[in-house]
């Protein structure tokens, strides 16, 4: 018998409504057979096909999206309904799962937001991927190499002319505000000290897309004595009136500066931060051409825009070659060696080891960002492990249900759907909860991690990679219990609800150990960070930072003559000394807590051949050591009146040792040579004190006395801080009426150095807390499942006379062993890691056993306590209840 064509037949079976199918098939077959007989096989096949095509009508097709249970959609509906029922039935389990997962997700997402903020730095400039900053490193007279973020001004125009790969360049300078004091800007009656005034090259705003609110991007910084203000600076000086075209006076000068542009405040994720941009021409005019033409002064930031496709390495090589062509000979004669590098703009934020960064620029250590990101990832993994453990444990208790499903013919893929849909439901709920946690804690997290959520945080988070990661985790976690259960025989599942009770998988124990390992590691990390911080905070700094008021000295760039400034300066010291509450007053160029940046070559004998040491030089007032209570090991301090020779100096002990004075007394009266030129005489040696945080080793320092040059007044006072503040302000206003008053306390200033490590400690403490909470939630869940499984066993044991303590030991001992294993793994790992962290600190805690036992003990106590919540109840239960039904 001839058969009708297969393909149209299968097509018919696919689309035809099941009720009609068999009747229609019969008709078609009957017709087909008749047609074969009457018209031949080929015609018959054609007619069959044609009939099938003509059957393709709405009335005959099967309904689309039928709710019939036979379709997969129906199964999905059933599955989600089942999942909701199961989740509602076991509320504790559901709550633990969702809470744990939500905490994990929230931590991870917060950290992800933080890292994507850090990575967004300087990314808003349109051609940013082609912008490079010129950095320099140099060495003078064989002293230690110094690495700078800045470079001399002559390089850029010279190189832009010679090297075809350079499309444009721009320079920026904060010449008068970094290390030189502030500029005071005045408009009408309003005047302020501006710490971040920059001089910007005419093309600066073309290279960098800082949003301009008013003015012309191309021309607003072209002229002499013009400036662009940021929005907030403009508001500060001009209030609500339109600042464009208004006049500003700079540093008491009578020459007017015109406001030609208003910029939006630089975005917080810009590594360049400034309030005022003055035209570069103005700086060049002030410096009489030095800002355009100088080959050694490095106080300028140079940015190159390379042409598309230009190779930065070859441009860098050319820069160094052309530089040597111009300067090679001169440098050699001065024993000076300088080398330049091109640093991609996008790396600027992640480079922490360069000197002379733009004031207010924010640098972050990429390793720290990486560490925090991995902590976030680990917390999420802990939360997922929890969920996996719990859902598997519970799936085992659903043996009966699964057994029935399998007996009724459920396929593996259908069971899979059941568990996966449950997993997705929980993940969705946890995601929503995590969103609320983030919202609720946003201000705290912003403070802690140092960034703004902004309005776009949800957008940042809904990127493909995160959603993919979360949904694939949800899938894997749903799949695992299915695989486990599909191995079992249905009859075993139906036989008893505790069929798999005795089976303990090393896999799950491994996961628990992993969780403990990470949690313990995080605790050890926070213990170490905090003890180290505490050590630094409390260690003896060698000087007395308390009750010291720092007042910014007057600006020296002033129309007043130097001698007038000096006499006023003496008057200020006298006025303050007469106050009853003032116990001492002195001056300094640079106070403890601020890096010393003035290295010089010091020799014991004159001559190029004699050995030279690099020692930082500090200029201080005569009473510096007495006011700060710094001890002399030998010799004396500077005299109050300038009777000491110009070149008397005091060394700290490190400097004396570095210069080879074995007996400190022998240093007294010795001659030293500064920078191969000037003779110095040692009049005293002080005990080492921590000029910078005790994180750093004590640098060798050399002090010389400057009676007139003052950057800070240091006032030692007794009594209430606000009182001395008032008095200092009154005196400043009277004696230096042109200078704004600015003051702070030395101990606050000094403590700012620890901010970074404090923040880090707080972050790690917070997240280790979260990790522990999640791990304990998991433990509680797991313990409740295990205990439920052993209810009968406990009942029998109690009947035979076991007491509560024995039962508790029985139930808790496994956790105890797992904890022990976890500690065994963590300790050596963390020892390695923490030793490396502590290497950065000059004064550091010893990593003794007590740190580890403390952390391990804390973890053990928390873990055992949390599972005891469950086991205690089980151990106390009356065996009658557990044994009565079978």
């Amino acid at each position, binding site marked *: 018998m001839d058969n009708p064509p297969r393909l149209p037949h299968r097509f018919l079976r696919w689309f035809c409504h099941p009720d009609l199918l068999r009747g229609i098939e019969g008709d078609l077959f009957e017709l087909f057979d008749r047609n074969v007989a009457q018209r031949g096989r080929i015609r018959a096949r054609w007619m069959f096909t044609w009939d099938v095509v003509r*059957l393709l009508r709405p009335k005959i097709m099967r309904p689309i999206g039928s709710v019939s249970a036979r379709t997969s959609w129906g199964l999905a509906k059933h599955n989600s309904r089942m999942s909701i029922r199961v989740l509602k039935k076991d509320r504790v389990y559901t709550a633990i799962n969702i809470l744990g997962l939500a905490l994990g997700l929230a931590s991870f997402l917060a950290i992800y937001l933080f890292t994507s903020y850090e990575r967004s730095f300087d990314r808003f400039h349109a051609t940013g991927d082609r912008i490079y900053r010129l950095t320099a490193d140099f060495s003078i007279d064989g002293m230690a190499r110094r690495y700078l973020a800045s470079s001399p001004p002559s390089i850029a125009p010279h190189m832009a002319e010679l090297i075809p790969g350079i499309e444009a360049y721009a320079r920026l300078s904060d010449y008068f505000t970094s290390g030189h004091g502030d500029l005071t800007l005045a408009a009408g009656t309003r005047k302020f000290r501006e710490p971040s005034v920059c001089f910007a090259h005419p093309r600066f705003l073309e290279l960098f897309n800082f949003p301009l609110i008013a003015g012309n991007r191309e021309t607003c910084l072209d002229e002499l004595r013009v400036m662009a203000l940021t929005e907030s600076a403009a508001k500060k000086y001009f209030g609500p009136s339109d600042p464009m075209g208004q006049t500003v006076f700079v540093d008491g000068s009578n020459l007017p500066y015109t406001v030609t542009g208003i910029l939006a405040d630089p975005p917080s994720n810009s590594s360049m931060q400034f309030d005022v941009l003055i035209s570069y021409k103005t700086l060049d005019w002030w410096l009489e051409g030095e800002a355009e033409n100088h080959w050694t002064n490095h106080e300028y930031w140079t940015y190159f825009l390379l042409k598309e496709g230009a190779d930065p390495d070859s441009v860098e090589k050319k820069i160094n070659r052309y530089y040597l062509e111009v300067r090679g000979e001169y440098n050699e004669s001065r024993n000076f060696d300088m080398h330049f590098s091109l640093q991609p703009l996008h790396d600027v934020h992640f480079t922490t080891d360069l000197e002379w960064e733009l004031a207010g620029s924010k640098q972050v250590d990429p390793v720290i960002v990486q560490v925090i990101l991995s902590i976030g990832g680990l917390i999420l993994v802990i939360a997922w492990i929890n969920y996996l453990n719990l859902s598997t444990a519970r799936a085992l208790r659903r043996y009966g249900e699964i057994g029935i499903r399998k007996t009724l013919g459920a396929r593996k893929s259908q069971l899979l759907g059941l568990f996966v849909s449950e997993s997705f439901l929980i993940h969705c709920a946890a995601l929503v909860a995590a969103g609320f946690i983030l919202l609720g804690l946003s201000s705290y997290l912003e403070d802690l991690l140092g960034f703004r959520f902004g309005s776009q945080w949800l957008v940042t988070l809904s990127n493909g990679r995160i959603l993919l990661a979360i949904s694939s985790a949800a899938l894997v976690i749903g799949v695992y219990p299915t695989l486990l259960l599909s191995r079992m025989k249905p009859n075993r599942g139906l036989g008893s609800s505790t069929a798999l009770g005795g089976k303990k998988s090393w896999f799950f124990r491994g996961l628990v150990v992993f969780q403990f390992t990470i949690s313990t590691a995080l605790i050890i990390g926070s213990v170490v960070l905090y003890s180290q911080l505490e050590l630094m905070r409390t260690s003896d700094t060698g000087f007395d930072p308390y009750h010291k008021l720092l007042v910014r000295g007057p600006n020296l760039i002033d129309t007043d003559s130097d001698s007038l400034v000096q006499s006023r300066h003496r008057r200020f010291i006298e006025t303050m000394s007469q106050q009853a509450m003032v116990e001492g007053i002195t001056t300094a160029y640079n106070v403890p807590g601020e890096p010393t940046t003035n290295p010089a070559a010091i020799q014991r004998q004159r001559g190029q051949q004699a050995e030279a040491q690099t020692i930082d030089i500090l200029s201080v007032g005569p009473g510096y050591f007495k006011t700060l209570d710094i001890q002399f090991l030998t010799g004396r301090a500077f005299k109050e009146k300038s009777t000491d020779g110009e070149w008397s100096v005091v060394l700290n002990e490190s400097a004396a040792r570095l210069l080879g004075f074995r007996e400190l007394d022998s240093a007294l009266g010795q001659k030293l040579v500064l920078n191969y030129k000037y003779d110095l005489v040692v009049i005293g040696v002080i005990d080492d004190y921590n000029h910078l945080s005790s994180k750093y080793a004590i640098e060798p320092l050399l002090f010389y006395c400057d009676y007139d040059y003052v950057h800070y007044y240091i006032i030692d006072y007794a009594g209430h801080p606000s009182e001395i503040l008032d008095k200092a302000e009154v005196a400043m206003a009277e004696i230096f009426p042109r200078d704004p008053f600015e003051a702070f306390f030395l101990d606050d200033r000094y403590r700012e150095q620890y901010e970074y490590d404090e923040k880090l400690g707080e972050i790690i403490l917070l997240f280790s807390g979260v990790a522990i909470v999640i791990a304990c939630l998991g433990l509680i869940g797991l313990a409740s499942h295990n205990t439920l499984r052993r209810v009968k066993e406990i009942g029998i044991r109690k009947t035979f006379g076991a007491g509560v303590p024995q039962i508790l030991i029985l139930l808790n001992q496994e956790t105890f062993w797992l904890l022990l294993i976890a500690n065994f793994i963590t300790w050596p790992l963390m020892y390695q890691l923490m030793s490396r962290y502590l290497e950065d600190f000059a004064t550091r805690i010893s990593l003794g056993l007590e740190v580890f036992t403390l952390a391990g003990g804390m973890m053990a106590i928390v873990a055992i306590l949390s599972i005891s919540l469950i086991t205690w109840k089980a151990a106390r239960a009356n065996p009658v209840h557990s044994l009565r039904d079978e």
Partner: protein
Amino acid sequence: MGKHQLGEFEEVVMLTVGVLHGNAYGVSIKNEIESRLQRKVSVGALQSALKRLEDKGFLSAKDGESSAERRGRPKRFYRLTAMGAKAINDVRDARNSLYNDIPRVAWEVNVSDHG
């Protein structure tokens, strides 16, 4: 015609189902229409009309015995329901009343027009 709306093809199918009383299934209906009315009927058009009429409640369907000539597939037999019978009658009455009201003159005019 009221609520009993029937298309021309639907009416033909129902009448044929009536004619084939007890033996009305896809192929027999198709054959009957094709031989009596001299018109081609596609399986698709027929089946969709049958389904439509079934949904309207004018026809009822029942699978018969399966048979070897149809490779094991049963015949799906159709019968007129009471509502179906009434619908045919209504349609017929409506037609007849229209037909009867055509004035004699009209016929003559028509004849002469053609003549």
